[in-house]
């Protein structure tokens, strides 16, 4: 697929993600657009695009299941148990309508489990089946792209606000403390994206998920500070993204947990692997 075709695909994806209701409706639209074929034939193009745009547009689809199932060599369209930081197991349900209003609890089948981000149809289960390494890695790359996309959405909101909001007679974007927070956010997101672009095997996918989680949390912190009062309300879109990255960071291993795992691997092997060769 060349750059022009990729752009075109990106535009179509963005259009359906911004015009279709999150959840089963979007799942259906993605299938119609050719998601199953794209995932089978061009995952290196499809996954960054689809998941990056889920983050940027702030919508939700259940395609993480497909990425993991496909990488495990199973049929897509179903669900699988997913490990969460701290030893929990979750299922990402497919046919659950997202809550109608902000702040409402998920209508997930169990009903008893409240996820911080109610738009994510996650359900806690007693136990799960460990994923094969390649499936875990594929899921981590997909979530990494989602996290970076959400980070970019937060940065866009904070940037817009910084230019529009005036205090002391000038835009807050003119204050260096504000500028540097946003610059740091971009540095973190760009760095994480670079690790995702070079994520190939299991370990580099783990690294990319850790970098993406960390970058998204950095974005959340800095953008929340820049958006200040308005960003703390549920009337502004920021909180959706913040809640989302907090949840997604923990899925398939939090940045904190993965970072420890990286250190353990390095200590065992006594050598730092060099990825990214010229």
């Amino acid at each position, binding site marked *: 697929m060349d750059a022009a075709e990729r752009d075109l695909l990106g535009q179509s994806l963005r259009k359906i993600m911004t015009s279709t209701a999150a959840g089963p409706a979007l799942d259906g639209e993605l299938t119609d657009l050719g998601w199953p074929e794209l995932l089978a034939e061009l995952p290196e193009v499809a996954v960054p695009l689809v998941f990056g745009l889920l983050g940027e547009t702030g919508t939700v689809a259940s395609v993480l299941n497909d990425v993991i199932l496909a990488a495990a060599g199973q049929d897509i369209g179903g669900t699988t148990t997913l490990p969460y930081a701290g030893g929990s197991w979750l299922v990402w349900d497919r046919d659950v309508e997202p809550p109608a209003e902000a702040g409402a609890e998920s209508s997930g089948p169990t009903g008893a489990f409240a996820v911080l981000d109610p738009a994510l149809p996650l359900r806690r289960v007693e136990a799960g089946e460990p994923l094969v390494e390649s499936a875990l890695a594929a899921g981590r790359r997909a979530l990494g792209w989602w996290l970076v996309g959400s980070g970019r959405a937060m940065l866009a909101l904070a940037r817009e606000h910084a230019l529009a909001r005036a205090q002391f007679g000038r835009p807050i974007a*003119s204050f260096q403390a504000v500028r540097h927070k946003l610059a740091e956010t971009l540095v973190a997101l760009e760095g994480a994206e670079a690790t995702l672009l070079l994520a190939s095997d299991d370990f580099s996918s783990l690294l990319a998920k850790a970098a993406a989680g960390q970058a998204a949390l950095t974005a959340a912190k800095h953008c929340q500070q820049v958006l200040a009062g308005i960003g703390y309300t549920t009337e502004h879109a920021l909180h959706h993204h913040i809640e989302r990255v907090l949840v997604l960071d923990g899925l398939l291993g939090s940045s904190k947990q993965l970072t*420890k795992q990286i250190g353990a691997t390095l200590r065992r092997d006594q050598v730092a692997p060099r990825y990214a060769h010229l």
Partner: protein
Amino acid sequence: MDVSEFRTGLRAWLEDNDLTPGPDGSLAGQVEQLGRVRRALFDAGWMRYGWPEHVGGLGGPAVLRAVLGEEIASRELAPPNFYALIEVLVPTMIDYARPELAAEMVPRLLNGDEQWCQGFSEPGSGSDLASLSTRAEQRGDTWVVNGQKVWTSLAQFAQRCVLLARTGPGHGGITAFFLDMDTPGITVRPILAMHGEEEFCEVFFDDVVIPADRLLGKVGDGWAVAGSVLPFERSTSFWHRINHLYARFDHLLAEAVDPDEGALGATYLGLHTARCRSHGTQRRLADGLPLGPETSVDKVLLGTSEQHLYDTVRELLPGAVELTDSQWRPEYLYSRAATIYGGSSEIQRNIIARRLLGLGKE
């Protein structure tokens, strides 16, 4: 010559030719070692790949220089910052010096005969380089320079200097010169840096006469000359540095007393991130794309991950920096400068805010 052919040949050559530094870790010893490494690599041809024929090179893509630096840095054969000085000096000569001057001088730097320095910063002009006040006045066929430079790395060892001086008002009033350091009127006073070496100097200019054919570019091109060091500083030379940091991280893994896995993981993740970013930048350069303000991201990632590495060294090798005179001490201290030289991290964030995020003026 492509990358893998070059790398394979170079590795085999390095196996047969031992360039391991001797016991003299002093600054003079390091400069000596640098000359030795360059000389051997030049004579064997490796140092000449990636540079054009008209300056003594053997041609081929610039990425070969990055590969050479990587192999040198990975084996810890030469101090990375000094080794990489070539990357900020030679491209300037190729782009701005008279062709005969470049052809005469560049081989002397590549082959280890000479050291050169970069005289940009002044006591009153650090981050605000455009405010520099060292003056150059035209007198007949020559230029006469008066003023002072500071933090000029290796000036006491250098035979030549790429100098910025003021020839008129504003950004368009800065002119670049290629100067012989033995010209009468130059006084060099080394400054003892925090890591215990006389890494840089004050350089005083008292009626120093420079022939007009030593201009780099035209009168008033100095600001462009200063900007021209950016692409290779931010690609090839960063790549050398990153590979050096990986080599040092391996030492940390071997020596760490405190097995803090979270700290080791976070440190490595920072290096990996800087490395991946730099890799993308080199790909863009190799594809012929111009490098611009987006390389400020690379600079912040590199400076931050370098300091993070040495913070972790200090934490996981308790006392190594403070109570022993191992290599960790000067390296730890030197890492504190990583967010200062070459444009401080704050200046990089200003550039990111203005040019990449479009936040308008401060």
